[in-house]
Structure formats: structure tokens, C-alpha cells
């Protein structure tokens, strides 16, 4: 959380995000309530009902319908918003590809949650990491203030004429959606200046008929995908640029693609994403006071994956430990695999070990971070394992 300012207020994370969405002035909102996202859309629904927000709020029968509605509204040139999580995101899957393939700049807050079976309503990041290849940009935030600020930034990135790509702003469910903490809510007028009205280049217009997302045969399909690929690479610069523009207007900055904490001289670097960062920072302070050179590298943009920025930031580390709340069953987990791939064709040869932790809401404590750092110190001398489930309860297996 940033330093205290006069405009800060203690509010629930979901309210803060809904307020940020209001400041983005979406023309159309469509969502289906699902824990732990519910408070976000409840608040938005209330704002529309109270006349605070002039949006068309469409209640629908499912997440599939919610995002399908937005395909229509966004293609017609309306700024469009949704929010979901877990099973809801899974139910949207087919539409996620349609949105990115049609280059519709929809912004969606994903209140990260585990997927069933077994049924679990608690936080992890399996839902969004599992959707890494659907063509959406993905930003992961560490606290409520960043969730607020990234939501405004997201529209500016998504709607840019060179990007035209949807974004998921990923915030840990419950941990960030249900926490009360001091937040500076966005100033409506400043937000309006930062994010002017949406100026779509292509819209569905009966006067000038056009088709979106139509048939592409083998002679053109590859080029559609290539253009999406190219747009995501361009977003590498855009995300950083928008983060800096935001800093100029609002005075807050969390890194663009990545951010770091005590990483400059760090021998052991923890790489992660999301709300566990706060706990890691406290653990790092404690370990630093004991003389351990530990640092943190935060991945803010997971898609596009900031390969060059990560190589530059991590090249001097002695050992890297990746902590993430997802698992790629049969392989490792998303972030650790991507990080290893980023280093393979470089001159960087640093041992990397991966941990899946916090699945289905299991708490991650300072003690856990210390445990990971101890294991990383061992790996520095020689890797004994590449990937591990942290705190596995072997007694119940």
C-alpha cells in the first residue's frame, strides 16, 4: 500500500474496484454473480440503480451469456466491462477466444479462485493462469490500490489503436476482494482526463456493413493469430508507458511489466505474482535484518510475458525461487515454466526452483517464505528438486 494521503479511505476491495470501474465509465456492464467476485458487480449494479453510473447493466443467465453480450456491445463501439472468477471464467472460455480474436478491448476483473472438482471457493490463480493462451493481456496486482489503478490503466491499454486487445486485471479472490484497507479512490475528473471516451476504429454499423470474427480459411487464419501476437508484443511498451502516464497524473507506480523489491544486490530472488507479494516483502525485511541477501521480482504482466525485462532484472541472481498459486498438472506450473523458457536461449544460467503454494485458499505465511528461501539456498549448491508442492500434508495422502 502506498503512503498515506488525505483522500484515503478504508473500504472493501470490491467496492474500491467497482468505484474504479465507475470512473472508467463503461457503456455496458454484463456479469453473473459468483463468489468471490459478487461484491464487485453488486456494487456496480447499485451504482447504476442509484444513477451514479450511466451504464447499461445487463443481468444474464450465465457467464457465457455475460461475455457474449459484451462481444455485441464492444463490437458496436461501446466500452464494455465484466468481472468473474473460477468456474465462471471457465464457462466463458469459448467467448474469451472470440473476444480476443475480434480484437475487442473488453476489461474484466478476475477475482482469482480455485477450480473444482473438488469444489473450492477460495483463492488461487489456477483460473487465470489456465487462461494464459486465450489472447487476453493479463495483469496481476498485489494490493487493492493497485487493483483500482490497474483497472483504469487497463482500458487505456486495451483500447489503444495499436493494441486492441482485451485485458484481465487479476486480483486474488477474498484476499483482495474482501479486505478492508486504506485506498485512495480515483478522482472522477482526473480519470476522465486520463481515459477519454473510447474511439473505436472499427465498429458494427448498419450504415457500413462489416463482419467481425467471420470465417478464415487456412490461407488467412495464421495471419489473424500473428496480428494478435504482434499486438501483445507491442503491449510490452504500452503497459510500461501507461503505468508511467498514470504515475504522472496520480503519483502512483507499481512497475509496468515487472517490479522489484530489494532485488539489486539480492543473491536469492523470489519471483511471484499477486497478493502474496506483501507477505513476501515483510519476510524479506526480516531476513535482510539477519544478513540474508533476499529480494523479490514481481511479475505484473503475465501476458505479454516480459522476457527481456526479466532477463535484465534477474541476470545477477545466484538462485531463483518461483512461488505461484497454480499448477500445470503433468508438468510444473505456469510462471516457472515460462521463466525457464525465457532464460534458455540467453547466457543466463541460474538455478530455478518452483513452488506451487496457496492452492484452494491455503494460507501462505512469512514462515513459509523462509522455508522457500532455505530450500533456494540449498538449490544454489545443486538442484535436488525442480518443482514442489509447498507444505504438502503427506499424512492425509
Amino acid at each position: 500500500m502506498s503512503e498515506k494521503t488525505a483522500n484515503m479511505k478504508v473500504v472493501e476491495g470490491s467496492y474500491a474496484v467497482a468505484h474504479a470501474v465507475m470512473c472508467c465509465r463503461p457503456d455496458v456492464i454484463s456479469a453473473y454473480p459468483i463468489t468471490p467476485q459478487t461484491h464487485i458487480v453488486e456494487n456496480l449494479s447499485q451504482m447504476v440503480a442509484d444513477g451514479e453510473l450511466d451504464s447499461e447493466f445487463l443481468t444474464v443467465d450465465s457467464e457465457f451469456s455475460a461475455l457474449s453480450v459484451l462481444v455485441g456491445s464492444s463490437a458496436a463501439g461501446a466500452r464494455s466491462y465484466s468481472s468473474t472468477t473460477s468456474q465462471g471464467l471457465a464457462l466463458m472460455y469459448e467467448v474469451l477466444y472470440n473476444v480476443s480474436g475480434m480484437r475487442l478491448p473488453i476489461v474484466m476483473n478476475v477475482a482469482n479462485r480455485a477450480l473444482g472438482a473438488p469444489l473450492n471457493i477460495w483463492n488461487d490463480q489456477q483460473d487465470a493462469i489456465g487462461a494464459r493462451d486465450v489472447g487476453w493481456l493479463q495483469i496481476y496486482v498485489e494490493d487493492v490500490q493497485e487493483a483500482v489503478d490497474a483497472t483504469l490503466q487497463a482500458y487505456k491499454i486495451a483500447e489503444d489503436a495499436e493494441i486492441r486487445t482485451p485485458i484481465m486485471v487479476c486480483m486474488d479472490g477474498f484476499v483482495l476482494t474482501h479486505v478492508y484497507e486504506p485506498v485512495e479512490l480515483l478522482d472522477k475528473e482526473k480519470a476522465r482526463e486520463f481515459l477519454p471516451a473510447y474511439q473505436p476504429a472499427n465498429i458494427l454499423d448498419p450504415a457500413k456493413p462489416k463482419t467481425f470474427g467471420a470465417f478464415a480459411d487456412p490461407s488467412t487464419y495464421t495471419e489473424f493469430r500473428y496480428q494478435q501476437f504482434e499486438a501483445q508484443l507491442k503491449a510490452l511498451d504500452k503497459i510500461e508507458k501507461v503505468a508511467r502516464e498514470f504515475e504522472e497524473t496520480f503519483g502512483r507506480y507499481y512497475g509496468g511489466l515487472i517490479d522489484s523489491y530489494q532485488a539489486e544486490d539480492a543473491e536469492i530472488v523470489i519471483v511471484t505474482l499477486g497478493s502474496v507479494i506483501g507477505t513476501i516483502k515483510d519476510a524479506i525485511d526480516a531476513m535482510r535484518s539477519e544478513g540474508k541477501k533476499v529480494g523479490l521480482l514481481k511479475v505484473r504482466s503475465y501476458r505479454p510475458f516480459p522476457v527481456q525485462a526479466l532477463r535484465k532484472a534477474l541476470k545477477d541472481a545466484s538462485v531463483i525461487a518461483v512461488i505461484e498459486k497454480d499448477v500445470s498438472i503433468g508438468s510444473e506450473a505456469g510462471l516457472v515454466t515460462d521463466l525457464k523458457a525465457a532464460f534458455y536461449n540467453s547466457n543466463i544460467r541460474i538455478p530455478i526452483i518452483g513452488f506451487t503454494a496457496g492452492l484452494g485458499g491455503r494460507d501462505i505465511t512469512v514462515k513459509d517464505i523462509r522455508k522457500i528461501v532455505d530450500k533456494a539456498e540449498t538449490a544454489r549448491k545443486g538442484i535436488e528438486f525442480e518443482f514442489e508442492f509447498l507444505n504438502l500434508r503427506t499424512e492425509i495422502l
Partner: protein
Amino acid sequence: MKEIRLHGRGGQGSVTAAEMIAVAAFEDKRFSQAFPAFGVERRGAPVMAFARIADKPIRIRSQIYEPDYVIVQDVTLLDVVDVAAGLKPTGKIIINTDRPREALKLKTDAEVITIDATKIAMDILKRPIVNTTMLGAFCGASKEVGLESMNKAISERFKGELGKKNLLAIKAAFERVS
């Protein structure tokens, strides 16, 4: 940093109480955080909520295992939950009960404070909702949050006559334990 754990039953307003601690502490110009122990909330089921208060921004997001203060809204929880688990020996536990503290047989070295919040709430609010009364007791016993700031937080949350009555309940509890 001071850490507070609240025990209650679903429907007793434990999450709201944690929120009020965070709002009031921030009003006192300190940093704060409050969050529920995320569960499948059902009316009557044991629930927990947490709050932190500090003089610098709070970053940690894990649950609270070694609280400085514990607030227990419903004494029947003592039969099913180890409410004093991890409580610091220098800390305090505030329990809503009409029983004497010796009868509770709590396993803790921390100071045990009892208050019949249900009676205060029934007398003033005419309802057995004790969360605001327990907040008054917390302010009085801990001195971590100023009574005026708590009153302000409550007044903003509960408007009109209900707000006024809640302030009376807070005052009664505050004076009882101070």
C-alpha cells in the same frame, strides 16, 4: 503492529466489527487492515475475522496466528473453538459472557476480560447483537483505538436512531472495562 482476531457465529457481525476497527484505527491516523477468515458463511456457524493496526503501511496478508487481542462474541464458542490459540501472553482476550472468568477455564497466560455484552445489548439495543458493544469493550481494554474514532466509524455505518443506540452500547461497555 497489533493483531486482533475476532470469533463469532455467522450473523453476529464479526466481519463488520473487524471492519469498524480498521476504519476507526485509520481515523486515529494509523494504518489498518481487516478481513474475514474466508469460509462458507452460514448463520450460526463459527466464524473468524481479523484486523491489523500499525504505524506504517500493512503489507502482510496471511491470517493471524499469534494475536495481541482476541474478541469472543459468543461464549458457547469456547466449547468448539480454541479461541485463545496463539494468543500472546502479553495480550488480552475479551469474552462476552455472564460467567466469572475462572469458570471459563481458558488455557492462556494472557489477561482475560469478561463482559456481559448480551445484557448491555438487550438493555440498550433490545436485540442480542453484541458486535458494537464488544467494540466498546475492545476500545476500553486495549486502548488501541480511540473511543471517539470508534464512535465516528459506527455513526457512519449505522445511521439515525440505530447509530445513536449503538453509541450508547459502546459507551456502556467502554466504561465497564476501562
